[in-house]
């Protein structure tokens, strides 16, 4: 073997950091919407107060959408993970290696959740066993959320993961300061549940009990998310300096704006309520981005890397993305335009 000595430089980013950050944040928001629909849908179903709660047409409709929401969460989660690794690989991999065991469990937990949701959506018509299956899925998804929150919070603290690694390289550890990342996880999970409950409420539009459950879940989750979000400012001494003035405003708005959904939903003004929840999500993601940059300032910045853009390949990606969007729209259009045949002429039916 004769290794080539003058190898191409592989340290350069293939696009300017601003473009990568934009793509990361955009795809991350899409991932969060799907994840919210998933978590909120499950919690709303579990909160319906009726003995036949898993046997009603509306709740079965929500139930049937949960595996789809899971598929969307996974599919839409691939891109932000890709762009995150590209921009923050040095600290993200280091944190993941320090927490290797919980990190590697994430796909297994997701698989367990996915399988449970499939099983729940294919449960007998009387709804037997659905509660347990949803409970398993919830547990697995919350565990994934906690591992993510711990790992990505750790990625912002190279001093902590270095100290942790010096103690043990076995990978059996989480972020050693739970008071900094647990409230963050609670805020994210509760906000997701709130948005998802809102969506589930829309899907179960013709079932008063389900809509009531959705409203109750939404209100409770928003309060929990707001309290956790505000508590973080008080508990995590690094957060306010990291956010800076703009970031603090975005963070507080991200906490407060979604609360407007509570009275709006009670008044039946779903469109503005949805807008408030969506705005809250975007604000929270932007604040999160600023917090990450601020916390890592002086230690690591994606913009430190050299850039050698691959514009041709990027253009091809844009073309493929547009083609995918058009194809997806066409498929959904065909789906929603179709109705089940009244008398099945299709021999497969």
């Amino acid at each position: 073997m004769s290794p080539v000595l003058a190898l191409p430089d592989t340290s350069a980013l293939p696009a300017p950091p601003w473009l990568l950050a934009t793509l990361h944040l955009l795809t991350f928001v899409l991932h969060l919407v799907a994840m919210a629909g998933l978590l909120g849908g499950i919690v709303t179903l579990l909160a319906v107060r009726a003995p036949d709660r898993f046997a009603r047409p509306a709740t079965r409709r929500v139930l049937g959408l949960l595996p789809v929401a899971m598929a969307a969460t996974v599919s839409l989660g691939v891109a932000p993970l890709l762009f995150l690794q590209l921009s923050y690989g040095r600290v993200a991999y280091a944190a993941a290696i320090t927490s290797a065991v919980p990190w590697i469990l994430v796909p297994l937990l997701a698989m367990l959740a996915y399988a449970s949701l499939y099983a729940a959506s294919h449960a007998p018509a009387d709804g037997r066993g659905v509660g347990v299956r949803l409970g398993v899925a919830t547990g697995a998804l919350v565990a994934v959320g906690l591992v993510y929150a711990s790992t990505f919070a750790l990625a912002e603290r190279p001093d902590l993961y270095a100290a942790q690694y010096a103690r043990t390289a076995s990978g059996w550890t989480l972020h050693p300061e739970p008071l900094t990342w647990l409230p963050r996880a609670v805020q994210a999970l509760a906000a997701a549940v709130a948005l998802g409950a809102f969506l589930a409420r829309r899907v179960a539009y013709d079932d008063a009990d389900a809509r009531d459950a959705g409203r109750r879940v939404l209100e409770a989750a928003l309060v929990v998310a707001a309290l956790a979000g505000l508590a973080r400012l008080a508990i995590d001494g690094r957060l306010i300096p990291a956010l800076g003035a703009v970031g603090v405003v975005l963070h507080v708005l991200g906490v407060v704006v979604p609360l407007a959904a509570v009275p709006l939903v009670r008044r039946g003004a779903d469109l503005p309520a949805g807008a408030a929840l969506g705005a809250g999500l975007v604000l929270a993601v932007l604040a999160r981005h600023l917090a990450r940059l601020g916390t890592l300032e002086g230690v690591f910045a994606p913009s430190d890397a050299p850039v050698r853009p691959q514009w041709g390949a990027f253009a091809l990606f844009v073309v493929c993305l547009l083609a995918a969007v058009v194809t997806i729209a066409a498929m959904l259009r065909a789906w929603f335009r179709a109705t089940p045949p009244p008398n099945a002429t299709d021999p497969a039916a």
Partner: protein
Amino acid sequence: MDFPVWDIDVGYGPLMAWVAVVHVFVAHFAVGGGLSLVVLERRARRSGDLALLAHVRRLSAFFAPTTLVVGALTGVGIWFVIGLLSPTATGVLIRTFVWGWAIEWTFFLVEILAAILYAKGWDRLAPRTHEALGWVYFVAAWASLAVINGIVTFMLTPGAWLETGALVDGFFNPTYLPSLVMRTAICLLLAGLFGALIAARTPDAKDRARLVRTDAVVALVGLAAAWAAQRWYGAAVPAELAATIGARLTIPARALEAFHALSLALGAALVVVALVPRTGRTAVAAVLLALGLGWFGAFEWWREGARKPYVLANVVYGNGIGVAEVATLARDGALPAIRVPTGDPGRDLFLHQCRACHTLSGYNPVLAAFAGTDATFVEGVLGGLHKMRAPMPPFAGTAAERATLAAWLAARADRTPLAARARRDGRDLGALVYEVRCGVCHVEGGFGDKGRSFEGLSADDAKDLLASVSFDEMPLFSGTDEERDALVAHLLARAEGGAR
């Protein structure tokens, strides 16, 4: 050396292999199964074959959850695992091919939605629309395979990219086409194997026989094409890498033998099922599937093993050290380059230079290899890693760091002399001493054999030779006098034709 190293007593290779083999097995079925579904659906509708249509529907009910839950999530699992095991190489791949992965993601989105709507749409969509969704699914799934194929083959054969750095050169590398043809054939094979598993559960015996035969024939065609494409693939591997297989790399050589043997076994079994389809019951179909898994695993093991000592051929070594970095690290030192140290220099050197392939005493252990030796010997071995029979990355560090690692390893190895450990003496002991101290570089009758150097020498001459031959890549003999005498006896007996 930007990253910590995960230190557990589990081999990185097997961990990666399990996740990857399960993923590729299901992912290739996801492509081939998609084609099989839509082609069979079309055929069934055209001919009004209700049994076939019912079979396709059952297959689609199995297909969607299997490919979405297991296929998609093991794919994500690969991301999680490679980031832990080879963060440097993963970083290089992502920076080089991020838009490739991003393009693949757009196909993935289409593929996932099409799979869901196809599986759910039997009673809702018009037949023509349903079939169209099936085609959309298959095209997106195959396109996704075609993109990932470019990145996977780059790892073995980066080709002209090494000189030009051009994305197109790296993507359309020397093994891109044979690999794509082979993987497409594998998709067909797996469609047949999984299809047979579902067909075997058809209630009516006549229909079952007909469906099983169809799937067996599809699988046979896929197997034959894949086998032929593997020969093409093997021929496209650069001579410098291919030459090491067998002579220096035993794993890919054995994997290739297993691949051919399993091709034969699987082919024979499929012929029997195609000719006598009543044998195609669930248990038989499950055995065929297991054979297919082993066959596919053997191929992947060959492909992965052929890359050694690299993880990205000629770019990054298996231990995550860049080929271009070695000279700098040898000059300036490896320890200052370790960004996240443990605080123990010997351990840090072990983790960054060795741990990707070896544990201390678990998987592929190094301490067992150094048992009964000493720090001088270990240091010598570290100096000649790249000259060993099994291709290894060179030690990337200064002479002082090499001594530090050697002392750290020797202090942990069993220091009981070989004679006492093995309870041997005379030429028996000599053979053991040869195996431990010489055999990793000089295989008797094989790679690097220097046995003829001792022809015509007296015992004293041979001892003098052992005491004088030493250079950076060859340790001076540092065993006990008893070991030296036994080794000399063994070497001289061999030189005189005294095969044991």
